[in-house]
């Protein structure tokens, strides 16, 4: 028997959820919306349920409740709950709190009811709820009939034998499709193995192989032998590693662990890892973003003998939020919904974990309409002596710790490796789940203490591939025996193979020495963390998985880990480069339709303006100001402050340069500076670079751009590039010959960056599934993205500077060499309709000098402010420095360049700096390219001259409004 408690806010003005929905409704038929929290409690009497309602579930000050009846009259009701089987994180808390109050519940659930008032019919409400995205049908449903029980009925899982040996090629591929994601050659290798073994595989064995050999886990493309335009080339990963290890002075561990580790100070190291979470976020952005964060945080914990996660970063690419619904490919979710839900997911997970989100960016391009790019980074500290990966030893015990295992997240590894299609949502919904940050937080607390007490022999996180991946890797060289019947389950009925490869979140596997096992378990108990002894590393060199007494998987470790044939892949220069460009630009045009929400991408450029902009013939001051407003309000340039304010970016007290600072606290910073050890002056700097467009023009130059931008951000706050480590993430379309060719060029660029700056890449990941295939075979290639992240150390956090102008009358310089005529992919080109295919380039050797100069001058306290140039160009950089400092600037460009090119060009590796005087500036910068631009001024006015001739003036405040408007309109507040 279920007791249902409904709780409502007494004052309807305080029903923010209801008010929020009402404000989003265009329909005038609805006059009011109320929200009601519903708790279902199973296994208690009405009297006890009433006690819980009073003491726990409602608060008399501002709430009312009702037991087993409605709490509000009238209206059309729709109730939205998690589907049975999807873990609702709140349930465990309700059961615990009831127990603390002396009441034992068998089961519980929590959901929301919405009451719509006005002239509406029931059917309309259901469709309204769907239009408003009140529910995500992947994980939630509309409750039509009240549930009779919340207990999920057990049904015994079983192991099937797959008659693989006799299958034809066609049958092999049918088996692989939508499930194993292996190609024919690989399927045949598997078939051959079992033919030799003279038996057919179990489903568990096939799933284990598919997971271990998935692109996501095995990086087949990066390891492949390459034939590029007919010439043999070394595998991508080899080229990266070879160059990286030449620059190993700070490397503690690279390429071999869950994160890359660099030497810090006083016996401590710092580590970093960046991941993508595109596929899950495309179909359930809230859960996808949460599990993305949770996973990358665990990568730090799973480093060495346990790292402590201390900071995170988030980089997103979406289609513009006013994308016309008709332009949305079938099976894809609208960008506004994706953006809002991803932000909410990152917020809810990071904030609950108490891990500050310190750095990030959001980019927009129409080609992300088929699949967003969601990149999450995590950084941590670890004592150097515990920073090396250790494989498990014979006799050590396999302990699973943390969350229970459920059916959620099945096939995540193989799914991430597949292309997105219009069928993705329905076929792969089990790949998505809702994270439970508190589960992860207490596990982190327990494991860090266990590490410090030397209780951990080896550790691995359960990411893609779950137990299969974690335990399989730990026992790779020695063999392991486990019993899945010992794994704690969320509900009964899972087949052994499902338990084995489930990607349920918040789990880790730890190898523990026999003598320390008891102590380890007691410690975990203290933190309310569940442990389960699953088996033992046994020296058999086999992977033997049991379910009770039944052997469900028996594979040679050697075959599992080394049986995958190395691929040979061919790459070919796209034949008709022009054709590619035409496709690109036709897609990148801003949507033409007049959206209901006009705020979004700037007002359209009038045709007349369009012809004049980009030719350098902008005449009137108004035209200049208008185009400038369009540039600063572009999605890639506009202020992201309303997003940042929802992330707790200073928890732990370690942040000494937040994302926004300056007098107004609204000036954007280039990188995060954190003080990992509060009682020491040492700093860690974290930055990144990413361009969503340029790789479509030229993957080599576009990738250089991303790398240089990341380093420029790092240097701009006071970082010493010589101490930096790089993390490279490739988010690329499915590697057909042409995409592989551009990927190869991107890797060449990264290798060249390492060579020029003499610094290593120490970690990275590839996600080669940015291709969408529609119902009629149409293909959308999501823009290839290289996200370059940089992190490293500085001895003293006080030797850093911010971007905001500090005082009036200072000298303002442009440092570095602009490639002025190259305007491809710039925001200005997009808003003005300028057609250029030249990607700005850098002289890397010169850049090393520029970076060293900037670093030196910050270290010695010679600069007052520094901000690097990126999207939006020089003028945007100047504007942002004015915003932070609440000052103005008067500029006179004494050159013969076309002025709009000078102001909007996006060559990276250039900086705007503020110094006390021109005399001082000339001295400081004499050995590097520098241009005196003008002076800071008291009034908040930007005034631009060229060769002493006034061109235009604009108030900082006016631009600031345009710059803040897009995200304020989306997220409500600054």
């Amino acid at each position, binding site marked *: 028997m279920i007791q249902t408690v409904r709780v409502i806010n007494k004052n309807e003005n305080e029903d*923010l959820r209801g008010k929020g929905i009402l404000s989003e409704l265009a329909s005038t038929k609805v006059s009011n919306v109320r929200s009601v929290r519903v708790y279902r409690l199973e296994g208690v009497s009405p009297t006890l349920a009433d006690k819980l309602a009073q003491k726990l579930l409602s*608060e008399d*000050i501002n709430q009312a409740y009702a037991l087993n009846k409605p709490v509000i009259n009238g209206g059309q009701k729709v109730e939205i709950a998690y589907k049975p089987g999807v873990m609702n994180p709140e349930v465990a808390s309700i059961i*615990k*709190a009831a127990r603390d109050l002396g009441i034992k519940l068998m089961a519980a659930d929590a959901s929301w009811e919405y009451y719509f008032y006005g002239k509406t019919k029931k059917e309309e409400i259901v469709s309204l709820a769907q239009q408003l995205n009140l529910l995500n049908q992947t994980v939630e449903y509309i409750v039509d009939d009240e549930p009779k029980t919340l207990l999920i009925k057990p049904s015994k899982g079983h192991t099937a034998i797959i008659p693989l040996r006799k299958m034809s090629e066609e049958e092999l591929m049918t088996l692989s499709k939508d499930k194993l994601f292996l190609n024919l050659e690989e399927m045949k290798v598997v078939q051959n193995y079992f033919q030799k073994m003279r038996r057919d595989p179990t489903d568990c064995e096939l799933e284990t192989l598919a997971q271990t050999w998935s692109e996501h886990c095995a990086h087949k493309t990066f390891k492949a032998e390459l034939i590029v335009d007919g010439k043999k080339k070394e595998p991508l990963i080899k080229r990266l590693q070879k160059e990286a290890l030449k620059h190993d002075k700070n490397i503690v561990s690279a390429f071999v662990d869950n994160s890359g580790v660099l030497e810090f100070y006083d016996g401590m190291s710092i580590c970093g890892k960046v991941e993508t979470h595109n596929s899950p976020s495309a179909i359930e952005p809230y859960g996808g973003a949460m599990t993305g964060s949770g996973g990358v945080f665990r990568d730090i914990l799973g480093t060495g003998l346990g790292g402590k996660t201390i900071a995170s970063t988030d980089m997103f690419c979406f289609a513009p939020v006013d994308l016309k619904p008709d332009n949305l490919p079938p099976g894809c979710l609208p960008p506004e919904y994706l953006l809002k839900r991803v932000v909410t997911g990152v917020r809810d997970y990071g904030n609950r974990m108490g891990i500050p989100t310190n750095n990030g960016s959001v980019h927009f391009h129409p080609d992300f309409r088929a699949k967003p790019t969601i990149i999450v980074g995590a950084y941590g500290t670890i004592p150097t002596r515990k920073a090396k990966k250790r494989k498990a030893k014979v006799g050590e015990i396999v302990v699973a710790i943390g969350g229970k295992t459920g059916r959620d997240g099945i096939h995540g590894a193989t799914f991430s490796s597949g292309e997105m299609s219009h069928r993705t949502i329905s076929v792969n919904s089990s790949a998505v789940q809702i994270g439970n940050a508190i589960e992860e937080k207490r596990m982190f607390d327990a494991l860090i203490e266990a590490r410090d007490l030397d209780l951990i022999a080896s550790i691995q996180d359960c990411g893609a591939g779950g137990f299969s991946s974690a335990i399989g890797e730990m026992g790779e060289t020695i063999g392991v025996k486990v019993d899945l019947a010992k794994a704690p389950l969320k509900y009964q009925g899972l087949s052994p193979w499902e338990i084995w490869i489930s990607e349920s979140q918040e789990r880790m596997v730890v190898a523990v020495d026999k003598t320390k096992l008891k102590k380890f378990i007691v410690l975990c108990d203290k*933190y309310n963390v569940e442990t389960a002894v699953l088996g033992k590393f046994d020296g058999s060199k086999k992977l033997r998985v049991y379910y009770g007494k039944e052997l469900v998987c028996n594979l040679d470790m050697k075959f599992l880990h080394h049986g995958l044939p190395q691929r040979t892949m061919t790459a070919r220069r796209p034949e008709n480069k022009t054709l590619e460009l035409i496709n690109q630009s036709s897609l990148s045009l801003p949507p033409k339709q007049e959206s209901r929400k006009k705020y979004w991408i700037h007002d359209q450029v009038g045709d007349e303006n369009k012809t004049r902009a980009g030719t350098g013939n902008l005449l009137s001051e108004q035209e200049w100001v208008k185009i400038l407003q369009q540039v600063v309000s572009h999605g890639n340039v506009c202020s992201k402050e309303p997003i940042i304010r929802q992330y707790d970016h*200073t928890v732990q007290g370690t942040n000494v*340069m*937040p994302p926004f*600072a300056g007098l107004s606290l609204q000036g954007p910073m280039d990188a995060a500076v954190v003080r990992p050890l509060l009682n020491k002056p040492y700093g860690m700097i974290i930055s990144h670079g990413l361009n969503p467009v340029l790789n479509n023009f030229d993957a080599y130059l576009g990738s250089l751009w991303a790398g240089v931008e990341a380093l420029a951000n790092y240097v701009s706050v006071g970082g010493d590039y010589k101490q930096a480590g790089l993390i490279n993430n490739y988010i690329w379309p499915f590697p057909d010959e042409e995409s592989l060719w551009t990927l190869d060029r991107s890797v060449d660029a990264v290798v060249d960056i390492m060579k020029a700056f003499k610094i290593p890449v120490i970690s990275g990941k590839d996600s080669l599934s940015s291709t969408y295939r529609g119902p009629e075979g149409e293909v959308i290639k999501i823009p290839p993205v290289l996200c370059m992240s940089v992190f490293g150390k500085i001895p003293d956090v006080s030797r850093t500077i911010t971007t905001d102008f500090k005082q009036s009358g200072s000298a303002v310089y442009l440092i570095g060499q602009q490639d002025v005529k190259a305007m491809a992919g710039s925001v200005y080109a997009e808003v003005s309709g300028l057609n250029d295919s030249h990607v700005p380039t850098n002289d890397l050797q010169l850049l090393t000098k520029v970076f060293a100069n900037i670093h030196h001058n910050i270290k010695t306290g010679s600069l007052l402010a520094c901000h690097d140039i990126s999207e939006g160009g020089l003028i945007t950089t100047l504007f942002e420095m004015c915003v932070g400092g609440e000052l103005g600037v008067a500029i006179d460009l004494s050159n013969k360049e076309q002025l709009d090119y000078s102001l909007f060009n996006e060559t990276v590796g250039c900086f705007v700096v503020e110094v006390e005087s021109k005399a001082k500036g000339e001295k400081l910068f004499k050995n590097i390219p520098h241009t005196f631009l003008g002076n800071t001024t008291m009034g908040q006015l930007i005034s631009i001259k060229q060769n002493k001739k006034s061109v235009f003036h604009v108030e900082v405040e006016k631009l600031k409004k345009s710059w803040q408007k897009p995200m304020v309109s989306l997220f409500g507040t600054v």
Partner: protein
Amino acid sequence: MLVLHEPHPNPLLKGEGNRHIMKSKPKILILKTDGINCDEELSFAFSLAGGQPEYLHINELRKKPSRLLDYQILALAGGFSYGDDIASGKILAAEMTSFFSDTIQKFIQRKDTLTIGICNGFQVLVRTGLLPFAKVGSMDVTLANNNSGHLECRWIKLEIETNNTSPFLSNLGGKQVSYQVAHGEGRFFTDEKTLKKVEDENLVSLRYVDDKGKVTQSYPANPNGSLNSIAGITDPTGRIFGLMPHPERFVLKEQHPNWRRLNGEGPHGLPIFQNAVKYVKQA
């Protein structure tokens, strides 16, 4: 007091830690449980102020509640205890009132003890009934959803009340300070009668003020829409103190986003912890 030229430069930097000093340091209990996540900066703030903070998990305390009485300060840190499920701080409050009612009564009645709750800790203090009237098991005020509907992480200005005689605030009355808020449920709310009582008894400790230093209801200076701009309160003895903003995140100069512009100004959060340590040492 606030404009201090770093009278207490970070002692940990100087490798301080002499045994004889350790002995005289008051013991501070920082209660840990699932989802508490501001414990390290809180611990750091107390040690910087000369205290001796120790973590204790609530499961250990449940085994032997009297351990609470070994301490002089009970500190409830920020975070999301038990995920803030149902309501923020609710589940931890239920646990504390179920298992430690008597011990807490004993603890707070001792004049040499202090209790502080920051952010989630404040939410717990309110939901246990310890604030504002030190009545365990009742609930007289609440911290409801921010009017903005979501978490707000920003630096805001506050004024410390002159009429509140709490030991935490000695010599600070009338000062204006910058702290950070980072919460989604911080809107102080109660009925008119209780509000009047809270005001009449001078239990308000801090209020949100605007740029010009005036008490404000307007967003975002008042980040959540609290009644009477209330950011923190104490019980009538002043020995129980709860606040939404985070003084523990401003105990080093560099923790302020504009520390490069704060000439000679000391960290605004530190005096709260120095006051607390000083009080229990002398009590």
